[in-house]
């Protein structure tokens, strides 16, 4: 009787439905040709990408989702398919060729990309997107998460809706926007800048090129612009409920009530437009 009980117990354990899908561990190496393109689509979970000098893509994944691979010549795509009833979060870690182009999308998860020199398209619905690198065309965005971009060169688009956008050491045409958060641009070298927020400050620090056009706009926030010593620019500034502040003497060339106030530095070549409804406009002088 004792053995029968044990046998029935074992049978019940073996036959009982699994209550949890084992955490799948994927570790795959896929060789790719030159000019590779890597695409990763995840629903829930983080995506971390770094680079190496090999012509191969290594994909590591942990989590309950089924991971599907597809490779055609130089294009590798990786997709996580969620299995109903078996947990949600699957994290990816990829190592890719340094110059590969990247398309990365996730709904709930962070994206981290380090050191690539290819084009980048990285978007999350509700997670931080952090990218270091990228060339030619770099598009990063999140609806609920912040966006951090550094070391990128080319045409840059960085968008959030409910968080901050922070760009550092970026070179190229820049479009950086959010609704509810600050937009900060530190050491950004651009000849074409469009930075905007609604509830947040705009901060810009970088060279002002004579042939450049710079637009910074917010509704509820301060605009802080650091002017290099040698800048040649015409600044058009408008604030409805705020003040102008400058930590150095400025000469107003035009100031009519209800209109834009204009400042001029050097011969006034570059065009700078600053607009905030409820915030102040702060001009600072850099030592460079």
């Amino acid at each position, binding site marked *: 009787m004792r053995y029968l009980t044990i046998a029935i117990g074992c049978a019940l354990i073996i036959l009982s439905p699994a209550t949890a899908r084992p955490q799948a561990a994927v570790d795959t190496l896929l060789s790719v040709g030159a000019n590779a393109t890597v695409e990763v689509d995840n629903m829930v979970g983080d995506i971390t990408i770094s680079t190496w000098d090999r012509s191969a893509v290594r994909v590591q994944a942990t989590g309950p989702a089924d991971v599907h691979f597809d490779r055609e010549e130089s294009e590798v795509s990786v997709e996580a398919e969620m299995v109903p009833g078996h947990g949600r979060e699957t994290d990816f870690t990829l190592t890719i060729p340094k110059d590969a182009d990247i398309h990365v999308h996730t709904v709930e998860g962070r994206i981290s990309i380090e050191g690539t020199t290819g084009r980048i398209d990285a978007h999350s*619905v509700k997670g931080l997107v952090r990218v270091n690198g990228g060339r030619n065309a770099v598009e990063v965005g999140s609806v609920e998460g912040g966006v951090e971009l550094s070391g990128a060169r080319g045409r840059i688009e960085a968008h959030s809706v409910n968080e901050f956008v922070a760009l550092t050491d970026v070179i190229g*045409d820049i479009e950086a926007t959010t609704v509810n958060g600050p937009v900060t641009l530190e050491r950004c070298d651009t000849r*074409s800048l469009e930075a905007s927020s609604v509830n947040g400050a705009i901060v810009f620090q970088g060279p002002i090129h004579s*042939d450049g056009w710079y*637009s910074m706009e917010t509704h509820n926030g301060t605009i802080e612009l650091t002017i290099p010593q040698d800048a040649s620019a015409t600044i058009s500034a408008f604030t409805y409920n705020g003040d102008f502040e400058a930590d150095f003497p400025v000469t107003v060339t035009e100031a009519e009530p209800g209109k834009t106030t204009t400042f001029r530095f050097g011969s006034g070549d570059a065009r700078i437009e600053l607009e905030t409804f409820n915030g102040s406009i702060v001009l600072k002088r850099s030592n460079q």
Partner: protein
Amino acid sequence: MSEHPTERLSAYIDGELTADERTSVEQHLETCADCQGVLADLRGIVVRARSLEDRPPESDLWTGIEARLDERPEVVPLETHRARRRPSFTMPQMAAAAVALIVLSVSATWWARSGAERGTDGGPPVAAVPPDTATPTQLASLDYDTAVADFEELLTMYSDRLDPQTVATVEANLMVIDEAIDEIVEALEADPERSQLYDSLTSARQRKLDVMRQTTSIIRTSI
């Protein structure tokens, strides 16, 4: 100083010059403040036109979303989907609305500004445009409101596949922009001579359309 390469500056920005032509232009720019100023203006035009250039993909986005909805009747039954859709909802109309908004807003701003000038230099009197019936805010509202309503409807359709918190966040942010728009309109009504506010209003409304476009794009590529 060599002859101004004004006609080649646009091609220079677009990267359409040969290496020699580019070098020539850059050498000229180094010493010519006039051309540097023209180049800065051109870059400004390019940036401002960017939102208009983005319209065709927006059309594609919405078409794709509609197709997805049709592909998944278990999520939104076709009959329900059709019933929910307003007869006027098509993406070309959406794109047209966005463009029309910009054109109308710019036109209205120009009209409002030039109206004051016409009134002082012998042109048609300002009263030729009854302010109570043709203000920029009213001119811009019809197509704009349709676009906004369509987006909100789409967000509702997606609500069963999006985290409710995400939907709430997007709606809260659109409300933030609405509050900004209301504040500008209020200021404009109190002080209609403050001409910069027309630009602020146009910009804020454009911002809302941009947010809707960007959000749709992110959601579409991620789900």
